[in-house]
């Protein structure tokens, strides 16, 4: 079993191959539509964005005394962030993206150019994944529970499948070429 320590360095992510199953130990931040828009339009951004492991997730959080606790935290559909992610990767050197459903060719290219991988989490496996997270803080709280940037420390967060690597390969593209044959057969 492969464990990646986050924040990860470029060499670590470039060594990952399609189809490998990995777990993450270390820091994870969440971000979806609004967080991406805010990060790209702000002058001052939280330092955790640099070299981040960015989890496309809008968790359900509860107050547990003074601390926040994630009770459900599965991946959200990554494609919604397609138009913003390449710039995020270039600007903040995001090393790892965790999500579901995969991302566009533009993002795949930015991942190759800058050294970043896309790890697919199991969509809807929100309780299992939340159990691997401890909340360490929140940024941009005014964006609301789903859209804010949550900061976590992860322990054996996964399983995650290397679905888009740092060399321009994508499991979704491989699957897509087979799937397209079915669409063509019936058109």
């Amino acid at each position, binding site marked *: 079993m492969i464990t990646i320590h986050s924040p990860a360095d470029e060499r670590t992510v470039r060594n990952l191959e399609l189809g490998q*199953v990995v777990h993450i130990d270390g820091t994870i931040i969440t971000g979806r539509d609004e967080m991406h828009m805010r990060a790209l339009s702000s002058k001052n951004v939280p330092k955790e964005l640099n070299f981040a492991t960015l989890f496309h997730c809008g968790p359900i959080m509860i107050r547990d005394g003074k601390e926040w606790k994630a009770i*459900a935290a599965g991946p959200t559909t990554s494609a919604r962030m397609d138009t913003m992610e390449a710039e995020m990767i270039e600007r903040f050197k995001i090393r790892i993206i965790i999500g579901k459903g*995969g991302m566009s060719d533009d993002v795949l290219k930015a991942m190759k150019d800058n050294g970043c991988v896309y790890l697919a989490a199991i969509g*809807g*496996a929100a*309780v*299992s994944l939340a159990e691997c997270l401890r909340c360490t803080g929140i940024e941009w709280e005014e964006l*609301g529970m789903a859209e804010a940037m949550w900061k976590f420390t992860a322990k054996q967060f996964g399983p995650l499948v290397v679905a888009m690597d740092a060399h321009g390969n994508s499991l*979704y593209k491989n699957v897509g070429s087979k799937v397209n044959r079915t669409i063509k057969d019936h058109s």
Partner: protein
Amino acid sequence: MISIPESVEDAIVNLLRLANTKLPEDVGWALEAAASWETNEIAYSQLGGIMDNVKKAEFMGRPMCQDTGVPVFYVSGKFDASIEKSIRNGVRRATSEIPLRPNTVHPLTRENPGDNLGDGMPVIHYTPTDDDHTEITVLPKGAGAENMTKLVMLNPADGTAGVKKFIISTVLEAGGRPCPPTVVGVGIGGTSDMCVKMAKEALLRPTDHVNTNDDERKLEEELFTILNASGLGPMGLGGDSTVLRVHIKTAYCHTASLPVAVNLNCWAARRATVRIMKDGTSRYGQW
């Protein structure tokens, strides 16, 4: 079992808790069946992770998915206008008590009231009947699957082949985004609004529902086979289990029309029903 009378508002909170924390048994069976024919290793582990999560959610009483969706309600039987207020109060309470993620926002300003309410929310469909009980079903609808919804107004000349083509391309082009293996709800016929409504209503059927119309059943089975042979697989990562079920609902339409709508449900095909009896006692189920 002893039932104590409870308010409609309490029943709504309980209903939302049941729907979000416990997957209907028939969906669990469909997932197990999918795992039994799955030959792809990654796909098999995805299904394993899904079932593991379902058990944890039920045991811990937590929502199985962080996207608790927007609740779509179907009210039938005997009721009056006060039921809307009770449902709204129930949704507000469930949001903080279960809790549910506050998902509803203004479509343009994106302002979030924090209670899963707002103009037009929650969605409630009413069907009065002559029964002396009230039945309320909830379908918590996550955005990943809902965002893949499509409606097309085909030409009658496109025929069944056109219908098939549209359903296949809609499901497959959605890729991993709606969290496959999905349940596919299809509406055919009616007017445009009715067609989309039927596609969603089809998702209320249990996965072991048998369509009594032979033509529709054959089309459901054919689509099921084609879609699962496509190779898309769980989460779009490849495999033999792309859909858990295809449900088709039809209505008569204009002679110049052939509307088709597809509404998907993620593998977490959540639903629950409460029947509130005349004496105020309630019975819950996921039938």
